[in-house]
């Protein structure tokens, strides 16, 4: 039941990424709402659901774009190990680590993606990419993080407190 709700939401975000994100570039780079959603999801609710969402959404995204199908799955894989940071409770706030791992996940995404493209014979401008792709994209994704984190945190807190009430009742 949970995935019947999550799936369409995630696929809608893929659609937004493919159709709308290119219209809002920063220094030529575009945001990756799917990555931000999945990373925030993994940080707020744990990586378990993300393990289902990553293959589902990434394959869907690759099918409707020109990417090799499976390339985005590879590029999004670091989200799951990165979410392990939530178990460490490094800071009082969960928000700051989330923003940091979104930036790291964005960098990982593009690096893996560039390696994949290079290995498939595409000409990837490695020298230009740090300033023209990696940093602007990481910045954009970081800016986008609160927009996904805050509603997710709110919805999760709400469902958790309802569940607690049900158990107590």
């Amino acid at each position: 039941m949970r995935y019947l709700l999550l799936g369409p939401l995630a696929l809608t975000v893929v659609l937004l990424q493919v159709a709308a994100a290119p219209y809002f570039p920063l220094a030529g780079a575009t945001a990756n709402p799917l990555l931000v959603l999945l990373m925030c999801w993994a940080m707020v609710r744990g990586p378990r659901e993300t393990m289902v969402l990553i293959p589902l959404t990434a394959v869907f995204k690759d099918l409707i774009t020109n990417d090799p199908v499976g390339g985005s799955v590879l590029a999004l894989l670091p989200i799951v190990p990165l979410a392990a940071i939530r178990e460490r409770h490094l800071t009082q706030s969960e928000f700051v680590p989330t923003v940091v791992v979104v930036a790291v996940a964005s960098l990982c995404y593009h690096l893996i993606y560039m390696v994949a493209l290079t290995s498939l014979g595409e000409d990837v401008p490695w020298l230009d990419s740090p300033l023209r792709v990696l940093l602007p994209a990481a910045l954009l994704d970081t800016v986008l993080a609160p927009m996904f984190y805050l509603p997710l945190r709110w919805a999760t807190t709400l469902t958790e407190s309802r569940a607690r009430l049900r158990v107590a009742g």
Partner: protein
Amino acid sequence: MRTIVWVLVAAFLALITIFLSQKGALDPLRNLALTVVSPLERGVRNAAEPVANVLNLIADRQDLENENRELRQQIEALRAEIAGLHEQQALSEDLQELLKVQEGRPQDTFLVAQVIAKDPSNLKERIAIDRGSDDGVAEGMVVLSAGNSLVGVVSATLSDFAWVTLITDANSSVNAMVMESRTQGVVSGTLHSGLRMELLPQNTEVQPGSTVATSGLGGNFPDALLIGEVVSVQGSDQDIFQKAEVEPAADLSRLESVLILTSFQPARLNHTP
């Protein structure tokens, strides 16, 4: 432990699907996905574009932007005409043999296609169009803007859709010529910063404002297709070659419909530009 197993299994499956994808085994699935999603995608794009315009421009300047776009198209069309005239003049004066080739070429025919998507990745400059191999589109075919300037080349085809690699893509390179000085070079895409014309001999004069068009060398593109305009020229006396920044004639970020040149047969149909 569970995370490591999941990562390894997912990576393994991803590599298998990449392999299948490269072999074209997933093309029918891609075609189906695009068929289902493209109307939704178009709707989202139509909704996103005005929002993007509002963010980028003050609301009162919308009319000015439309007017500017129309004027830009007119300029582009006129420059394409000028590029063609330059070429015709050169052919009639100096290159009678090429003129015969020109006359021998069949009448150009075009296929109109709508742009349905842009590649959202930050590393590629590609667009999806609503024409595919069932419409006669093949990899390597040349794609033009509504103003008749070069947009790119068909780089992948599905039965109902195709992907076009734009001339600004980092993988794109086009043999080109500065029309005023007849200087030949290679126009390549750069990451998010337009076009660069390289291999321009040091002893030739290339001025900002000069028109750049395809030279026809190599056989992948017809000659005298407008590419853009020289913005700046770089290179010291010690350099063997000069470089020039070129602004594309077509507004590649706002393409809505394109023309596929179906009558021209590229020398290497499966070659990415």
